[in-house]
């Protein structure tokens, strides 16, 4: 009896240490942040641990916060779309390459992840500046007469974030492409389907799970990205992450910063779970 009982409790004991770490490093700080967002704060009195909805009311009523959150999600959606549009064909091409070339190209694809985020973003700043390589090139080609504004614009942030996050999309789509029956394209061709029909009707529906998981990763990372928006977007172009940072470290209004962070987290979870449900229901058959 006691042996059976200990046998049954063994998994819990084994999972215990990891669970403890998770609890200590994720759940407790998260709970404290949520709690903090309900605290009061004043220029002279600092953080006062008494319950108030002040921060939340401020976020809800001040259009500035709405604007920042709107921009954050607009950037995230654009980055996600760009990653899908570029990453899916790239994964397909990668999948059809000979093994030798594939490993070379995979390294190139994963490249951005191997470079420090700050160095990479500063590189983009050099390229995208008004005297940067991109503008100089375009002007030399005569395509534009005055430099395009990339720095401190959403376009610049979207470009830099797409570059960083596209490996996640490619790897995730590639994984689901590898599960495809290699003969399925031939089968569709033999039945009379052309290249684009095969893509639209046969391949794409089957890699939807890969696109979805890639999109979730990309969206979540883009929405919570800090370094790229901070460097390319600068102080004028605030997103949720840089806003929370400023509240914490510049204004020292920790409770308001906490409220922004919690709102970002909740919004992300809701959007991701919602879109996941939607896509899974639409493509139920490929998710088994």
């Amino acid at each position, binding site marked *: 009896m006691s042996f059976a009982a200990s046998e049954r409790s063994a998994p819990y004991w084994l999972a215990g240490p990891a669970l403890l770490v998770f609890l200590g490093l994720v759940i407790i700080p998260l709970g404290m942040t949520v709690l903090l967002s309900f605290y009061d704060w004043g220029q002279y009195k600092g953080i006062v641990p008494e319950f108030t909805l002040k921060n939340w009311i401020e976020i809800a009523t001040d259009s500035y916060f709405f604007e920042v959150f709107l921009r954050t999600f607009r950037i995230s959606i654009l980055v996600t779309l760009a990653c899908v549009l570029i990453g899916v064909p790239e994964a397909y091409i990668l999948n059809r390459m000979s093994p030798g070339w594939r490993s070379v190209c995979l390294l190139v694809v994963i490249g951005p992840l191997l470079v420090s985020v700050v160095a990479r973003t500063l590189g983009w700043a050099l390229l995208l500046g008004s005297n940067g390589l991109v503008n100089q090139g375009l002007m030399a080609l005569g395509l534009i007469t005055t430099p395009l504004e990339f720095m401190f614009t959403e376009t610049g942030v979207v470009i830099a974030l797409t570059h960083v996050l596209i490996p996640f999309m490619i790897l995730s789509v590639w994984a689901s492409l590898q599960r495809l*029956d290699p*003969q*399925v394209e*031939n*089968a*569709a*061709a*033999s*039945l*009379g*389907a*052309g290249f684009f*029909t095969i893509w639209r*009707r*046969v391949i794409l*529906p*089957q890699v939807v799970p890969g696109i979805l998981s890639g999109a979730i990763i990309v969206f979540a990372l883009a929405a919570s990205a800090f370094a790229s928006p901070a460097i390319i977007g600068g102080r004028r172009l605030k997103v949720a992450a840089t806003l929370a940072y400023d509240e914490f470290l510049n204004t020292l209004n920790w409770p308001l910063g906490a409220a922004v962070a919690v709102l970002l987290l909740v919004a992300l979870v809701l959007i991701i779970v919602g879109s996941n449900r939607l896509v899974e229901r639409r*493509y139920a*058959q*490929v998710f*088994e």
Partner: protein
Amino acid sequence: MSHLVLEGLCKSYGAAVAVEALDLKVERGEFVSLLGPSGCGKTTTLQMIAGFVGVDRGRILLDGGDLASVPPAKRGLGIVFQSYALFPHMTVAENIAFGLEMRGIGKAEREQRTLDAMALVGLKGFAERYPRRMSGGQQQRVALARALVIKPALLLLDEPLSNLDAKLREEMQGELRQIQRSVGTTTILVTHDQHEAMALSDRIVVMNHGRVEQIGAPDTVYGQPATAFVANFLGKTNTLAAMGDGAGQVDVLGFRVPLAGAPAGPVSIAVRPERLTLAEGGFPARIKSRVFQGSHWLLGAESEAGTLLLMRPNDGMPVPAEGEAVKIAFAPADAALLTEGKAP
């Protein structure tokens, strides 16, 4: 004019020759099998007909027209793949209707033809099922229906039964043959399974190392193998050392039988185990082993002409004991003169 003509078909991958100078004529409605061990070029040949693999040299003519410049999507061939290659995100009906949809056939006719095809392969009532929810045999039927519903000029079967268990495979063989007869589509089957090839085909093309060893009806190829490779690949066989007299007779340790075309000097002849009989007047041998198999006995014998395998029906006649000296004979018609295989 033959329905399908392969003329001097060649294909190599780098230095490796996959198919070498393959000639084949297939008549309308015929069921032809490409049979051989893996790597013999049979699948490459099928893929060249389908258009998935380019042709190095030679021509593929369908109804007299060269297929070289026709892309796979325009060839109008029905193909059943080894893995079935069904579309997992589509129902059975959608899978089968896909080819009709690509041909721009109207909804009403499409539905009718899909239903007919499902009835043909015995899948009535499975329209809304997804392939993943079906057994291997059922998936196989879906693949067959999907290939047949477009009324293809040719039906190409790439090892279609190799993923089924033995019992189901036998069932499907019978059914496949019957369906092919009823729709009358010219069919080419690629297989490494000699039983499958013999059970299904009108003619068998035995291939080895990219070359054709023999083309003929199953009983001819089995009974009169042209080369040592064919004799050994199709069923069990005995190869006997004999001496030709140059006048149409061969001599096996004193047992003389007429054999047309036998040259003078030492020759090899093949006789199937079930065609060797124990008879006075035959050549001497000694029984080495005997194994009971229910419907028959397998006897191993040793003679100066070579090691022999005999199959004796379990018909109540006494069976020689191990170590017993016997005389072995065969009818002239049961012996095949072996030429050396062209390939190494």
